């Protein structure tokens, strides 16, 4: 009964000044709309940029590094055990990049149920022979199918069919920028030279475009067999084992485990791309800061309008109090007014925000660097809507709090005497 009366009075006061209240509500709507639009867009962009890296980066990469032995002979000597031993100019011994026993390691990993998938790889330096000039390059020998399953390889093959790499012997997919330099068309045969001087003819079956120009200038892909042949190695030769996990977050811990277990170097995605996460974090932070600033500005708008309304309604407040409404009732009336502006403006804002996101989602966005993207990216995350909604209610509550308190403290005697 009492709440009904309070709501009833609030509504009448609100409707008597509906233009002002509409302006206040529009302020909230605008800021929530921008908040949703901004965060959805920024977050979409973050996902896209992260995807550029994360989709193509193994969660853990196992490899061999050529480095000087950590245990020098003198360390093994009992006699000098308690001495400080200084050895200068240590050189790595002649060791291969090959992962020994790769077949057994892969088998062991396949049994590990934290692992989502495995893709073996060979990375090797080559020269692309163009006329009399040699261009440096890198050939990635891949298991075409697992590479596609784990790293969406086909998405980045912009021309030609990726599976030809497996089906056509001695084939290569060139980085787009490299192909342009070499003037190599699909179907052409190019020649490469390995670091050890072996030469091989390879047929171009497609172009590869990663979005990162520097990579596309040097990298190419061949099947793992072709690469083994190119290097003159056996079919066990593998330099990297790429692992995707079911849960990305356990990568650092698992990397350590594998490092000890297999006696190999292991690098996790978080360590390999820490600068990337920082970028995402900063972008998110900025969007939240801007969004919340907008909301606070809208809050000040509500604060102003309520203050004006209270100034305007001094007489009414005095009468209400003289006829038996308590300060608490008056407070409740103005809090109700503020909250309904917030709720109404907020709901409209959430809807317009969704509309704005959908609109941005339709805007064409074509760039050489991102072949899989055709429109601006949007992340429709319910989280933004919840934050926006909750925040609009909180801001309006606080915007209403002080004016309402002021209204509740109005002394009717002062007003009535003032006439």
């Amino acid at each position: 009964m009492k709440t009904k009366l309070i709501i009833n009075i609030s509504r009448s006061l609100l409707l008597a000044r509906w233009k002002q209240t509409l302006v206040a509500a529009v302020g909230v709507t605008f800021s929530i709309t921008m908040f949703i639009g901004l965060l959805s867009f920024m977050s979409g962009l973050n996902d896209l940029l992260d995807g550029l890296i994360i989709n193509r980066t193994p969660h853990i990469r196992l490899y061999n590094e050529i480095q000087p032995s950590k245990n020098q002979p003198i360390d093994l000597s009992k006699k000098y055990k308690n001495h400080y031993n200084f050895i200068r100019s240590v050189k790595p011994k002649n060791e291969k990049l090959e992962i020994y026993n790769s077949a057994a390691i892969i088998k062991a990993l396949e049994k590990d149920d934290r692992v989502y998938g495995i893709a073996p790889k060979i990375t090797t330096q080559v020269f692309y022979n163009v006329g009399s000039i040699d261009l440096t390059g890198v050939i990635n020998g891949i298991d075409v199918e697992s590479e596609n399953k784990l790293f969406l390889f086909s998405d980045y093959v912009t021309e030609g069919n990726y599976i030809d790499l497996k089906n056509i012997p001695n084939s290569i997919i060139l980085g787009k920028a490299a192909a342009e330099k070499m003037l190599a068309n699909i179907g052409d045969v190019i020649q490469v030279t390995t670091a050890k001087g072996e030469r091989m003819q390879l047929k171009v079956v497609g172009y590869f475009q990663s979005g990162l120009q520097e990579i596309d200038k040097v990298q190419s892909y061949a099947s793992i067999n072709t690469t083994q042949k190119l290097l003159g190695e056996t079919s066990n030769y593998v330099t990297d084992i790429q692992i995707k996990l079911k849960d990305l977050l356990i990568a650092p811990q698992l990397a350590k485990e594998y490092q000890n277990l297999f006696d190999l170097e292991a690098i996790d995605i978080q360590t390999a791309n820490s600068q990337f996460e920082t970028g995402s974090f900063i972008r998110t932070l900025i969007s939240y800061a801007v969004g919340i600033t907008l909301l606070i500005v809208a809050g000040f708008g509500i604060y102003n309008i309520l203050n004006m309304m209270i100034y305007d309604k001094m007489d009414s407040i005095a009468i209400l109090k003289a006829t038996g409404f308590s300060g608490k009732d008056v407070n409740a009336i103005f809090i109700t007014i503020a909250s309904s502006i917030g709720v109404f403006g907020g709901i409209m804002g959430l809807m317009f925000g969704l509309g704005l996101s959908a609109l941005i989602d339709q805007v064409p966005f074509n760039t050489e660097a991102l072949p899989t993207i055709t429109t601006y990216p949007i992340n429709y995350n319910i989280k933004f809507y919840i934050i926006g909604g909750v925040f609009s209610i909180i801001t309006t509550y606080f915007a209403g709090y002080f004016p309402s308190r002021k209204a509740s403290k109005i002394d009717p005697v002062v007003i009535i005497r003032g006439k």
Partner: protein
Amino acid sequence: MNEKIIEAIGINKYFHDPKTVKVLKEISFSVCKGEFVSITGKSGCGKSTLLYILSTMDTDYEGDLLIHGVSMKKKREGELAKVRNEKIGFVFQFHYLLNEFSVLKNVMLPGLKLGKRPEKEIEHYAYEKLKILGIESEALKKPNQLSGGQKQRVAIARALINNPLIIMGDEPTGNLDKKNSETVFNIFKELAEEYNQSLLIVTHDNEFADRTDRIIEMEDGKIINQ
């Protein structure tokens, strides 16, 4: 006739701005059930100040105020609001109606706040009060569509809605022409005689005061005659 509705006991009141002035000095009197009492005195002698204290709106005073035998001195703001709502009907010199609501709703509001009866019944009752005051035909208009005399009658109807112990008025006819003043006076008289309503009305219209049951005369913050 002896049941005391309201009783002031030794009320003193000071204003501190710009310098401390004692505006009410040892005011003591009471109003009994069904009495029609007027307060008169020169402008500035403290009549309004006294009425604001008696109506519980002003709590900054010395002495005590009893309403139906209960002291108001120790009560909190919310409790005093309840007393005003339930036991006191106030009529101002200026009409003080809420222009956001219809005449009928204005009359109903204190009743809705009290919440002792269902809305339908309060509405019916408000209509009845308007009928007593002869303005039921204006019930659905907004207050700003009424004349001064009509507005004052609406204010009286509002003061009556919760069947208060006492109706207080601060120069309720001060702003009305002769004819309308007469109407309002007759309404008060009728309420006192027919409905045994207690009334305490401030006025400086001597003709008005002379026709009430009792006159309390004030001068310079003191009661000189009652």
